[in-house]
């Protein structure tokens, strides 16, 4: 499924992964998203919150990862990146 604006000149397509409470809220474990380029993790979060039912309840500043490493919300995302939003970690 692709969610996002269709009017941008250049775009980037991302796979967004959801886990635990976030996956349950969205009713899914991943979303493919197309966004105007350039974009940051915060832009991905904003699009998810406004366009995916259930994800309007995501926190303002969730933990995030880009390509399997922790990332700040200000980090840029690039075409093909794997972005993830992580509920509070509870390992160990």
């Amino acid at each position, binding site marked *: 499924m692709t969610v996002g604006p269709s009017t941008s000149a250049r775009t980037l397509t991302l796979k967004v992964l959801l886990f635990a409470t976030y996956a349950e809220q969205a009713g899914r474990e991943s979303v493919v998203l197309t966004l105007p380029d350039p974009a940051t993790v915060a832009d991905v979060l904003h699009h998810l919150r406004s366009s995916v039912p259930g994800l309007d309840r995501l926190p303002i500043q969730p933990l995030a990862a880009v390509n399997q490493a922790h990332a700040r919300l200000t980090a840029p995302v690039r075409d093909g990146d794997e972005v993830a939003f992580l509920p509070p970690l509870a390992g*160990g």
Partner: protein
Amino acid sequence: MSAFLTHEPIDLAALIRRVSGADRGGIATFLGLVRNHQDGRAVLRLEYSSYEAMAEAESARIVAEATGRWPVAIALEHRLGALEIGDAAVAVVAASAHRAAAFEACRYVIEEVKRRVPVWKKEFYADGSVEWVDPTRMAAPIVTAPGQ
């Protein structure tokens, strides 16, 4: 990709054997066991899940940081899936010729694992409720039904 995550019971003795060499006589370990309560509620069992690819990558980074900082060998394992009360959920073994290094590296690894490795825990309570554990909250919130 299965270096740090396992769906099998953790075998501490095997992890110790993996890192205890002729030169490394000091072995510090940490085991995290499943407790039978959380914020005062009785826990029957729980399930650990993970963003597995990232958990493996982050675990590898943490171990590399520890072995770069101290003269140690590290074994680290986190169990996923259904666990019972008393089961080990995570084990860290740090082996060194130097006792202080073994302790410090072991502590570093478990602290960083808890802070950085993407693992989540769903608890099933005696009262029938189910909840994703959120260590950032001081006390458990009102019951959340599964799948909600």
